[in-house]
């Protein structure tokens, strides 16, 4: 009994000493700033910054490779904290949100074929989709599954909806969409041309009730001259010029352009 106790005690003591020595000798010099930055990051590992997870981004910031405002999800508050840790002046970032540039749900743009197969928009896109429009939303919800912040859902008509309050602008949905229907836009802008079809007006008219028909009414109506015709067949808004007035939206005959609700409420 006694021998066992002495033996165990000695063994424990020697191994403990060995570990203590090893810890001293093989100590890894770690940049204290990295762990400090990790502690202020959101920790969602969304990849929106372009680095593999939050730890990867923190290391890149400490090495000076990534900007202190690189965390899109964290926005200005996180950028400020990181710049404090790094000891540099904070640059302000304008927050972005995801916008679905298509309104062609199952009512507005009818399906012309029945799809059976795996529930993945990329797979359906390889077959050309189940609607006549070759530009619009495929409606299988790959973007919703890609969202790590629970900021998207599919509505009952088969179109994804972004909950702007929850959206962090990480861009995971943008990368998940094989048709490029989703894109990031400045969060304070509310007027969007919600169509991506480059087909000519009469062709769009045939398959979608809410697609841009390139009538150019918005281009002529915009007091800021912010709207141009991309490739001559699709209206495009320059967000740096747009002031959310919403005149284009009221002029659009097919209601492709969204109306700035919040801005209107504020004004009234």
């Amino acid at each position, binding site marked *: 009994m006694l021998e066992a106790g002495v033996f165990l005690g000695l063994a424990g003591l020697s191994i403990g000493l060995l570990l203590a020595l090893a810890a001293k000798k093989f100590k890894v010099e770690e940049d204290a700033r990295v762990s400090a930055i990790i502690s202020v990051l959101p920790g969602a590992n969304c990849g929106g910054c372009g680095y593999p997870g939050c730890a990867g981004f923190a290391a890149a910031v400490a090495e000076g490779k990534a900007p202190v405002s690189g965390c899109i999800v964290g926005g200005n508050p996180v950028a400020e904290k990181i710049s404090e840790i790094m000891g540099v002046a904070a640059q302000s970032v304008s927050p972005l949100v995801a916008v679905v540039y298509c309104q062609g749900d199952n009512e507005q743009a009818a399906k*012309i*074929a029945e799809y*059976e*197969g*795996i529930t*993945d928009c*990329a*797979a359906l*896109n*390889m*077959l*050309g*989709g*189940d609607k*006549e429009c*070759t530009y619009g939303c495929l409606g299988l919800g790959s973007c919703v599954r890609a969202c790590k912040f629970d900021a998207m859902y599919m509505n009952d008509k088969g179109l994804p909806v972004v909950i702007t309050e929850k959206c962090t602008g990480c861009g995971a949905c943008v990368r998940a969409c094989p048709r490029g229907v989703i894109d990031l836009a400045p969060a304070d802008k509310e007027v969007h041309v919600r169509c991506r079809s480059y087909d000519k007006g009469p062709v769009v008219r045939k398959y979608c009730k809410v697609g841009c028909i390139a009538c150019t009414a918005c281009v002529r109506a915009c007091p800021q001259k912010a709207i141009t015709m991309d490739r001559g067949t699709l209206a495009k808004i320059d967000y740096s010029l747009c002031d959310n007035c919403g005149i284009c939206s009221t002029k659009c005959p097919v209601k492709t352009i969204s109306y700035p609700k919040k801005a209107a409420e504020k004004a009234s």
Partner: protein
Amino acid sequence: MVNLKRGSGGIAVPEKKELSSSAKIVDAGLPNELVLFLSQHTGAPASALVKAGDSVKRGQLVASTQGAVSAAVHAPTSGKVKAVEDRYHPVQGRLCQAIVLEPDGLNELDESVRPRASAVEDITKEDLVALAREIGLVGLGGAAFPTAVKLTPPPNKPIDTYLLNGIECEPYLTADDRIMVEEPHDVVFGFRALMKSAGVKRGIVCIEDNKPEAIEAMREAIKPFGELELAVVPTRYPRGGEKQLIQVVLGREVPPPPGLPLDVGVIVSNVGTAYAMAQAVQKGLPLVERIVTVTGEGVKTPCNFRSLIGTPVSYLIELAGGFSGPVGKVIMGGPMMGVSLKDLNAPIVKGTSGLVVLQRGQIKREKVLPCIKCGRCVEACPMGLLPVWIAACSDSGYLEDAEKYRAMDCIECGCCAYECPSKRPLVQSIKLAKNRITAKRRALAAKK
């Protein structure tokens, strides 16, 4: 007679060839509009030489090759170019540039269409290769690989055997069968021309044993030529895949991609390709028409048509008596590898060997169940792959693992999905993985 070797994998499928195997090839005539895609082949798209308003004649070059692996496009009949615009490509599933032609009904021949030789001996090897390139010849079995590229193998890879693929293992389709029955001498003429252009001395005509009429016709036709042999292959899907065919007939294994048949000293061409080559040598006619089987329980009278490239699917179905009842699916190609069409205005392309129309009642919509790891897909795979693993990796987004399990070796024959008791869409998952791997490789190459 050629000694056959054992091939692995494959499945027995209902053949259903009796629907159209005795229907003689008939001319499909002129539709109101022809749509000629600039990308009907493997490789770079052709570039258009005409614009809206131009008048063209039958056989006139309307789009020329771009780069080494590409194929020219010719006008199938005389008429006016209505537009050069983006149209929906039924096989590639995306918008592609196309020449839209309005026939004038006169069918005037272009002056470039003139006979080259009446015997294979009268034309040189170099002229034959140039001719194959000039007429835009592609493999008519389905993949539409430019034939001229096949005919000019690198000098360090000697070719000893040329296989003529008359297997036609896809159920329903009978286009190749009918060509061999009706035009065996032209097929042999074209085959000898192809052999000469590639400088190959030994040729084997391969036919599945479910086509006795074609076997007899071809046996007679090759008799005068000592360098030609006949191989009658037992029926099993997918023997018509070139890798499977080489395995069975010659016992050689084609190395995995980018390995090609020429790495084991073999070239394989479809009987339709040989027939088109014969037309080019004897009449100078470019590849502007092909034999298309329109069949299935969904059409009233299944037929084999000699159809102009660019003819709308709806026109051919009308010609075959129209639909026999409620339609389930219209498939371009065979039921195993073909694509289900969403738009019947889509045109026939160079690689379209048939249209299979199925009735609504024939389409089974079974629930997809979880994989039970029974391994039937592994047994069925003619490439010796593990479809279950590749599909699982693809579904969960592990692209590197899908690549490691050799997703790129998949020939998309559909055996695994056909055999799966849980009805899992395995091929679609694997196709998606292949598509993503290709995109990734392209992005990597662009970075470098």
